[in-house]
């Protein structure tokens, strides 16, 4: 049985007190806290072998190259990729999604499908691709509770569809999409699927072979890893066919100079997508984060978060003045709850009050998901508040969060 209180002690930030209160950090859907093993792994790079990987032949260069390659293997294990070369380091999921949008060639006049529930990073790269390349773009609307009607997917994906971009787990409603069914429909009709796994990967077991997605985008900073690190997974044959996103050093096997012409010979994936000197400390920290989460077990983490979410939802549902966005079916959710309170004019008041009075840290705004807020009749200026739970949260955190909301409502009604 997992000792969750021992796990809390791995996170130095939780040792802080603000205005005499312990931190209640409920903003992991934006950025997770970092455990000591991740910090130590990154420090080891800076303290022991802060050199260039993949090029310098000296001892420090060899050590960083080995650590960098090992980190990729760890990430491949974490998502169960068939080949480590299918894992491309990026700055975040946004960059990963942009690589797909920019570098994947799709037939002229074809259709891209996305949803009303996407994070802007899951929709805008494809909105822009459609605009640039004269493609059609269709939006499948999420239901008000954040779930999808599979019949709408069957109707939307046709033989003209080249690509589907879908958020696997919503950063607003926390609902988990029926990805495997959607992938099956898409593949039957010849379309590829890119899955935004920024919110799914940190909280559930992500098996890219099981889901059979063609591309998957991860933000490693949301899964206990360093900020500025993300991952693009792509099936190897697709990555080989794609254009480069950035070009330059480290992407080429050779660059010949013949008859006044510069002729590049590009490397296969992953190198063709990783131009220039890389964030070695970040990659090594990412591998450590994957190791850390796997050592606890993603099923265990999923269960723990859903237990906390269940406690929070039960309390919220008993309170007046609160509107919860998204389904209350725990089995369809990642560990987050988004809500409004009708006694305050803006969700930012909720985040400010909880922070100032209770050291409870939640996110407020439209969470880079304006279309879904408009769909639900919530103007971005009013916004919603979001509390997101992770492996280092406990029942006490939930109770303080509820205590804070109770005090807020009493003071604002």
């Amino acid at each position: 049985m997992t000792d969750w209180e021992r796990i809390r002690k791995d996170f130095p930030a939780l040792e802080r007190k603000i205005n005499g209160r312990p931190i209640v950090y409920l903003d992991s859907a934006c950025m997770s806290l970092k455990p000591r093993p991740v910090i130590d792994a990154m420090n080891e790079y800076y303290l022991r072998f802060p050199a260039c990987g993949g090029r310098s032949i000296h001892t420090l260069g060899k050590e960083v190259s080995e650590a960098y390659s090992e980190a990729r293997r760890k990430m491949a294990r974490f998502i169960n990729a068939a080949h480590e070369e299918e894992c491309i380091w990026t700055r975040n999921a946004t960059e990963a999604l942009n690589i797909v949008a920019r570098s994947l060639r799709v037939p002229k006049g074809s259709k891209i499908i996305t949803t009303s529930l996407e994070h802007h990073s899951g929709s805008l790269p494809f909105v822009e691709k459609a605009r640039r390349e004269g493609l059609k773009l269709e939006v499948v609307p999420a239901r008000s509770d954040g779930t999808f009607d599979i019949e709408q997917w069957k109707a939307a994906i046709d033989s003209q569809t080249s690509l589907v971009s879908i958020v696997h787990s919503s950063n607003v409603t926390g609902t988990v999409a029926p990805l495997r069914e959607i992938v099956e429909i898409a593949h039957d009709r010849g379309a590829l699927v890119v899955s935004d796994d920024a919110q799914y990967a940190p909280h559930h077991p992500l098996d890219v072979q099981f889901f059979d997605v063609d591309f998957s985008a991860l933000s490693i900073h949301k899964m206990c890893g360093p900020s500025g690190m993300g991952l693009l997974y792509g099936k190897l044959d697709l990555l080989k066919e794609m254009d480069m996103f950035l070009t330059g050093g480290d992407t080429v096997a050779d660059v010949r100079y013949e008859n006044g012409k510069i002729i590049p010979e590009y490397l296969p994936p992953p190198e063709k997508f990783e131009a220039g000197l890389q964030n070695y400390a970040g990659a090594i920290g990412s591998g450590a984060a994957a190791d850390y989460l796997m050592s606890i077990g993603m099923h265990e983490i999923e269960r723990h978060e859903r237990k906390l979410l269940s406690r929070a939802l039960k309390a919220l549902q008993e309170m007046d003045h609160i509107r919860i966005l998204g389904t209350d079916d725990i089995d369809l959710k990642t560990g987050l709850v988004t809500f409004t309170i009708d006694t305050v004019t803006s969700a930012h008041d909720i985040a400010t009050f909880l922070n100032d009075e209770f050291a409870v840290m939640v996110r407020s705004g439209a969470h880079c998901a304006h279309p879904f807020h408009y769909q639900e009749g919530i103007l971005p200026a009013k916004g919603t508040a979001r509390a997101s739970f992770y492996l280092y949260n406990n029942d006490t955190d939930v109770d303080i969060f509820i205590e804070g909301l109770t005090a807020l409502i009493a003071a604002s009604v």
Partner: protein
Amino acid sequence: MSDLSRNAQCVLRILENAESLTTSEILEIAKRPEYSDICTDCAGGDAFIAAANELVSLGLVTKRFGKGGYRWSLVRRD
């Protein structure tokens, strides 16, 4: 040149013309054309309110929580 961020300068300019405002009123006013030269980062509002809170820390603005939520006011020095 002010050391304050553009968001913070925007909040100050809005509050100069009002006794006190709610959070959503500030965000709505920030979108008006007359503030478009300075108020450009208020779409989601979070960065904007973070700037307002910074002004509270600097003693330039006060906020008071009550019915309806926070009301923000400029600290006026005679």
